[in-house]
């Protein structure tokens, strides 16, 4: 089988990121300590160029290339662009973290780039194998990143947990995929969809396969009851890594769900809809309730992630284009809020002291009104209070879910978001109503200051003018 060169053009961003990651790895190994920031600069350039390349491909038509393993469509272009841009932000925060913790490590960026490559492959996968390939590339990079701080017992424990549970989930996913393959005789998502839409399928095998695939997906999302790893990994990993895990991979997980559940198993939607309803309600309930009991901010945000995943699943399970675009909007904006939230944790960390307790935010308004205000925006956005983008994310999901006559589910969702509001405003309370425990001024580098401000204002700005992004999300699915 020969592949025309033009097909490779569609893979330009992937090829570019891969080669740059390899180059940076080599550069990193050879430059002296003085020039170590070069890998950071190169990584950021890579991401920006890749974002530009992908953005230009937004208007192209849906094509399946490389023998049916790789798909390029507007959704992929939009999701990849957002992954790049989110990761740029994540890297800025990560650099600040590495500078203040005294270890500037180029490997972080290399691993990050490989993880990004993994997410790209997942986003554009059009075959069960490609999905698995992307997923493993992402996961392996993440395992290594979590274990980065090898002297820390907590981080090692987190990495171990993540690895063992992640391997288990991958196994489940693979098992489900093999059943699908057995039932339909193809790995190609398009052909699977074709085969499933024909009557006379053995529904037993399909449901079994679907179950395992959904479990694998749920693990990647961190949806209840497959969420056990989330708090431990978020808490144990260095903040710079947590920040990364909480952002881009969520977008990739959304893409994976779209490719697997919607594109290829759309005709089984009645079955996976029920599963997603259970997971979504459980995630909303457990995430929001348990988050209240946390004293560590990273754990709190971990449970908050779980509840946000519950919301995101709501859009997916609506089973309409409207719902998918609502979920996509949710995934992108959540990633934006998540890097902002974790970025703030890095910001208030001092040299040699890694902030991870809620109390570290006490009296932030006295120490720095501007950053307190940024965190205020982020928290209210996560709580879904307008005029922030978090509100519109929730609004569009709710609208999609009510449109398919599942008003009760919308009521459940808003009920739990009231509970959720409590722990977000508790953080605002700590920042604004309490006295600071230390008067030490915040040492914030210029790029960090700019990144956080941009991030916070973007959350507010997209809340005032959400129309563009909403329309974009709807148009790429149309």
């Amino acid at each position: 089988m020969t592949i025309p060169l033009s097909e490779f053009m569609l893979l330009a961003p992937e090829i570019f990121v891969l080669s740059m990651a390899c180059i940076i790895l080599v550069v990193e190994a050879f430059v002296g300590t003085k020039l170590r920031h070069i890998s950071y600069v190169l990584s950021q350039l890579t991401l920006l160029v890749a974002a530009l390349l992908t953005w230009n491909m937004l208007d192209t038509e849906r094509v399946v290339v490389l023998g049916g393993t790789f798909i390029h469509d507007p959704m992929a272009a939009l999701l990849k662009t957002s992954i790049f841009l989110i990761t740029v932000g994540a890297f800025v925060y990560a650099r600040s973290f590495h500078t203040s913790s005294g270890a500037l490590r180029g490997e972080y960026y290399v691993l990050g780039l490989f993880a990004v490559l993994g997410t790209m492959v997942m986003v554009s996968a059009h075959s069960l194998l490609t999905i698995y390939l992307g997923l493993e590339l992402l996961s392996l990079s993440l395992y290594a990143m979590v274990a980065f701080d090898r002297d820390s017992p907590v981080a090692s424990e987190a990495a171990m947990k993540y690895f063992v549970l992640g391997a288990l989930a991958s196994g489940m996913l693979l098992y489900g995929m093999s059943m699908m393959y057995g039932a339909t005789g193809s790995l190609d998502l398009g052909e699977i969809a074709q085969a499933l839409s024909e009557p006379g399928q053995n529904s037993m095998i399909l449901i079994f396969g679907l179950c395992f695939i959904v479990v694998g997906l749920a693990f990647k999302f961190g949806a209840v009851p497959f969420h056990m790893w989330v708090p431990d990994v978020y808490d144990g990993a260095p903040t710079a890594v947590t920040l990364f895990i909480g952002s881009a991979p969520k977008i990739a997980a959304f893409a994976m769900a779209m490719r697997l559940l919607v594109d290829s198993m759309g005709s089984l939607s009645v079955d996976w809809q029920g599963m997603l309803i259970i997971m979504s309600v459980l995630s909303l309930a457990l995430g929001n309730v348990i988050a209240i009991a946390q004293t560590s901010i990273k754990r709190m945000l971990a449970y908050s992630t779980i509840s946000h995943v519950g919301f995101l699943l709501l859009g997916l399970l609506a089973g309409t284009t409207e719902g998918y675009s609502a979920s996509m909007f949710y995934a992108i904006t959540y990633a934006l809020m998540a890097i902002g939230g974790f970025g703030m944790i890095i910001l208030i960390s001092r040299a040699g002291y890694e902030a991870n307790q809620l109390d570290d935010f006490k009296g932030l308004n006295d120490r720095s009104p501007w950053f307190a205000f940024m965190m205020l925006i982020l928290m209210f956005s996560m709580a879904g209070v307008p005029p922030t983008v978090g509100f519109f994310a929730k609004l569009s999901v709710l609208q999609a879910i009510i449109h398919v006559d599942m008003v009760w589910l919308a009521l459940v969702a808003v009920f739990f978001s009231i509970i959720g509001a409590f722990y977000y405003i508790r953080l605002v309370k700590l920042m604004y109503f309490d006295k600071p425990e230390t008067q030490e001024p915040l040492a914030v580098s210029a790029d960090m200051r700019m990144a956080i401000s941009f991030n916070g204002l973007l959350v507010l700005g997209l809340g005032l003018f959400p129309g563009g992004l909403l329309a974009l999300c709807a148009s790429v699915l149309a």
Partner: protein
Amino acid sequence: MIDYSILSWLIWLPIAGGAALLVMDAMGNKACRQVALLVSIATFLLSTQLFTHFDSTTAVMQFQENIPWIEAFSANYHLGIDGISMPLIILTTFTTVLVVLAGWQVIQNKTAQYLASFLIMEGLMVGVFAALDAVLFYVFWEAMLVPMFLIIGIWGGPNRVYATIKFFLYTFFGSVFMLVALIYMYLKSGSFSILDFHMLSMTMTEQVLIFIAFLMAFAVKVPMWPVHTWLPDAHVEAPTGGSVILAAIMLKIGGYGFLRFSLPITPDASHELMWLIVFMSLVAVVYIGFVALVQQDMKKLIAYSSIAHMGFVTLGIFLVFALLDNNGSVEGAALGMEGGIIQMVSHGFISGALFLCVGVLYDRMHSRQIGDYGGVVNTMPVFGAFMVFFAMANSGLPGTSGFVGEFMVILASFKANFWFAFLAATTLILGAAYSLWMVKRVVFGDIANDNVRALEDVNAREFVILATLAIAVLLFGLWPEPLIEVMHASVNNLLAHVSVSKLPVPETGVALLNAVQP
């Protein structure tokens, strides 16, 4: 007509002013205060244009602005006001000026943020009253919580954190269900326009559920018994300015919500569930009146009195159904509703004034306990006069604005049902009892202790604030005509709307019609 987008100016000028204050934090408190005062006065003067250019002969939305905002939801940036929202907007801008003045010397801690919160709050509240798009309305409605949350939490009393979190969660709880109802109606009507919602035809079940969703949002905001418990806490802990804004305007937003949403969108459900609202209102008037009587804390007393007075508002608004049933005429029913709206405006002045009076005392003695005072009139004669006057107005003395609204509502309830009127009229006794008894214990009598002996009378700033309010209370008490006039057309239009059923034509009827046709 005005050829610039005045409503946008009224919303965004204070918000921009507030943002500017946050930035110019470093320039010192004095500069911040002056800028805040300037912005608030400018906004107020601008808002008077609404009154002078208002066409009171029509019920059509005026000063409309409509530009596309979020095309994905077909939500528009649609503003416009009628005779119901216009007085409330002016009340908002007016009160904000007084609040900025009231915090002049008292707030020394984070002054810029304090003033900014109030200015931003002002813009958001005007936005709530002016929004004609449900998404826009909801955005303003919820965003309003954020500055208030901070105002109570940062500058409040000792138990402020509990009070402010309770406030936030209560109101948030109420409003999210309204959001679900709004989305539901959007999907039915295809747009988020509130005016389109008014035209929507819905079955009784739908109407009742939507009515209940709205009730949760607005009853918490008003607040109605039994979801009123956040108010005394919030009022007691809030700084004076916060209490004033809460009592004078935020509570009105609940009443406004009933008028703009519940009544015209779900008239049949409102009719059906009228008994519930009337019951809750009467409980508020009678029971909360008794609760107010036994309060030891002045702010708490006024807070409970607010709940009782707002009970009058909801009573007046929902009496229209009983009146429409009894005599079927729109004109007769207008009495109760207009009484309710006048009561809202009047209560804005009076409760604001009373909270400011307590603020004046609190700034001097740092106590709100009635027991700590006594004989204040001996050392503060001017202040004593004001406080007595406002307490009289609060108990509905003829000649003050408090009388007009209460009288109209009681009159309307007589037409509806004798027992409604009987219970509602107890407020005249209870209101007088708790207001005047408080005045008696605080203002009159011998000087109670040395602290009271050392009190100084109101200074020029406080005098201006209280005198302005006193004039307003008197003016609307003696001459309420302009206020009634601007709202008359809108109220009649609303009533005409309400008296038409929104139930879909029964399908059996349609089937019969089709069968008859050849």
